[in-house]
């Protein structure tokens, strides 16, 4: 079943939102429409505005100007019908410290009619959480696991994940991703994930939103993005490569007159061939992974 299929509006829409904290502008004239049923990777450097955007989507923070809608309702007016469909895992979520994990899960479960005990059981096992321990006794990583449990077990239609895996070890991260993928297959829910562990993000995202200094710099399908960013290796047996390249799609260049490594951003399929011909060199094309694309995406606006 795909619950979002019946939704008449996208899970989250931002229209020209600006968010200021005193003098600091966290988001500036930011517009975005999160497509339903997608897994959106939110990319940006520290302080780019990712957490602010997720908090606005969750209704925790309101924009200084502009409009934001979650499930078609303004962020300030989110109420039970919307919150039941929303799951949030915060970077530094605070739980009730004196409760045990079990007590906390039971407490939160009492607020959701659709709390999935089976999913909870699977996740508790996969994330290796001891339900008998008190929250205050847990390590940072274990607290993050509890936050994930609290945000996911009611099977939300829109899941906002803010650095959910930053304190988890690789084994638990892999298990969590497996569980998330399974969830996505079962429910087709919309996920917005902000994480700096891009290797993991790459495995599940199909849409990329890039933010830099509070501005939107990328908003497109991941496949499309992979097609447009590439690494070209030019090899000239005669050593005739130029010291620099003037083509606007070339984002970075290193090498010498015999071999050059170029990072490019173009959707022109024939561009590689034309460049190779113009400098009389062989060319090898390799698509970039998300980790390699990240600096190019987040620095493109600064260069411009």
């Amino acid at each position, binding site marked *: 079943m795909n619950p979002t299929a019946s939704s008449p509006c996208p899970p989250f829409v931002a229209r020209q939102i600006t968010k200021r904290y005193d003098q600091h502008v966290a988001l500036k004239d930011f517009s975005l429409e999160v497509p339903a049923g997608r897994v959106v990777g939110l990319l940006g450097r520290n302080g780019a505005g990712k957490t602010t955007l997720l908090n606005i989507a*969750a*209704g*925790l*923070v*309101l924009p200084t100007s502009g409009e934001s809608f979650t499930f078609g309702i303004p962020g300030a007016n989110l*109420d*039970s*019908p919307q*919150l*039941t469909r*929303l*799951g*949030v895992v*915060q970077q*530094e*979520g*605070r*739980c*009730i*410290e*004196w*409760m045990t994990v079990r*007590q906390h899960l*039971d*407490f*939160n479960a*009492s*607020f*959701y009619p659709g709390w999935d005990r089976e999913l909870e059981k699977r996740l508790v096992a996969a994330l290796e959480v001891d339900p008998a321990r008190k929250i*205050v*006794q847990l390590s940072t990583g274990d607290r993050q696991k509890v*936050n994930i449990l*609290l*945000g996911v077990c009611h099977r939300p239609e829109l899941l906002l994940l803010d650095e959910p895996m930053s304190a988890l070890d690789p084994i638990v991260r892999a298990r969590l991703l497996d569980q998330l993928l399974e969830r996505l297959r079962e429910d087709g829910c919309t996920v917005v994930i902000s994480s700096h562990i891009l290797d993991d993000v790459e495995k599940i995202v199909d849409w990329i939103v890039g933010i830099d200094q509070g501005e939107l710099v990328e908003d497109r399908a991941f496949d499309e993005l992979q097609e447009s960013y590439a690494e070209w290796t030019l090899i000239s047996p005669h050593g005739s490569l130029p010291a620099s390249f003037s083509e606007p799609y070339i984002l970075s260049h290193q090498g010498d007159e015999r071999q050059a490594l170029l990072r490019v951003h173009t959707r022109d399929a024939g561009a590689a061939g034309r460049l190779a011909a113009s400098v009389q060199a062989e060319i090898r094309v390799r698509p970039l992974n998300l980790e390699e694309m990240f600096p190019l995406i987040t620095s493109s606006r600064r260069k411009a």
Partner: protein
Amino acid sequence: MKLHPYLRVLRPVRTLALSVVYILFVWSWLRTFFRVPAPVDRFLAIALVGSTLHGSLLIGPLHEVMHRSFAAFLPGLHRRLARWHAWGVGVSALIFTAVLAFVSMEVPLPASLGLVLASLSLPALNQRRRFRGGLRLWHPGMMALGGLIAAFAPMAVHRACTGAPWLVLALSAPIVYLSFRYGFDRRLTRRRALEPVFCIQTTILFNQRIISEARSQMLALTQKQAKGGRGRDWTVKSVGGSTWAWLRVQFHVLFGRSTVFYQVVAVQALLYPLLALLFPYLMEKATHPDTATLAGVLRQFLDNPPVSGNPMGSFASIGPVLMLSGLTMFYAVLVASAVPHRKFPISRERMARVQFAYAILVVAANFAIAILGASVLVLGACVLTGLPPGLGPLTRMLAVLMVLMAATPLIMIISLFKRALWRIVVSILLAVPTIPLCIYVATSGNSFAVSPLGLIAFLPVWILSAWCGWRAFLRHYRTADLGTQTSILLVAAQSGCGN
């Protein structure tokens, strides 16, 4: 409706136990200090003050839930909490009213019910607003209001309840409505979710882990709120190598670049004289109810020497000085036990030096505040009594502080002992000479301590005491687990270092 999660959050046994203690405490105060006559004191203790305190205990755990980040996303949380609270208030109101029907039979039931309902509901209005520097005004405000009613209008409240019971019940309705309406306002969700709150049911019984967690969360919030207090990485390259430079970092980390520290100092300087005067006045009122007046207490305070021939003759004359000293001591212990363990990139010995200097500086600031408080008290007393200003009380205060300065470094290290038995033994060993000496110095009017000869006599004692304190800090920091979430008290209690 499911009440199980509510009872889980409320912790009824702790709530009930605290309520009983509160009510007995309030009742004894109304009788002893405020001299409220017998039937009225019971009525006020249960119907007004006790109910308000019980209401605070009922709403505290719910506020604790509201002030967690996940609370903003729980569907229908505020409606659910309001319903739970209505149950708690309703059941409590019935019990309180039933008790009042037996112990205050002269008050009609509608009045009892109305006053109890309003008092139980009122604490829901506490928004737990935290001002810069972590100041909260609700509890001091409520205490002041309670004190004013107990001191000036106990009979009026009682008369109103016996004379117009239905009016009291009718007037309670809007109070109850407004308390629920604004206490559970969904618009406050966002602000509440960002500010942690820990209720007394959670922190009672000195749960060190919880207290440490609460302290570290409050500290993080204070730093976040402080202008320019955002977290940053401190390196030797950016800070420098001197102890003084790292001491400044320590202050910056704790208080930010704002004036939070000075605000705390100012509030303390205002509170100290008030507290120092309140208890001696209440004691005097309790022992001499007919003759005790504020002016009389202030006159005795200004006397020098205070009470000739009878050192404990009048609490009013030495009480303020001893109160100020006691507060100073209490704060010194609090500061020393709360010195946070931080991960600065410096050696453990340098770390010990920074933390010891920090503790000493804060305690010294507190000593200065006590002197400032005493000065304010003296000036205030002179203005109110019309007597000329005299240095007598200040001299006594200084003399007591000089004794305390010798004891403070040793008191500061009590929290470093892991075993409670050692803490108790050392506390007793320190208290046995210190307290009588302070009382003697405060009562004798002997100015030897503040004379040049006295200074020379005290100097080696201070140096020896400071050296002992420093050695204990150094030994502790050489072996303690350093982390951002812990403080000396917690580490000493867990790791076994320090003794």
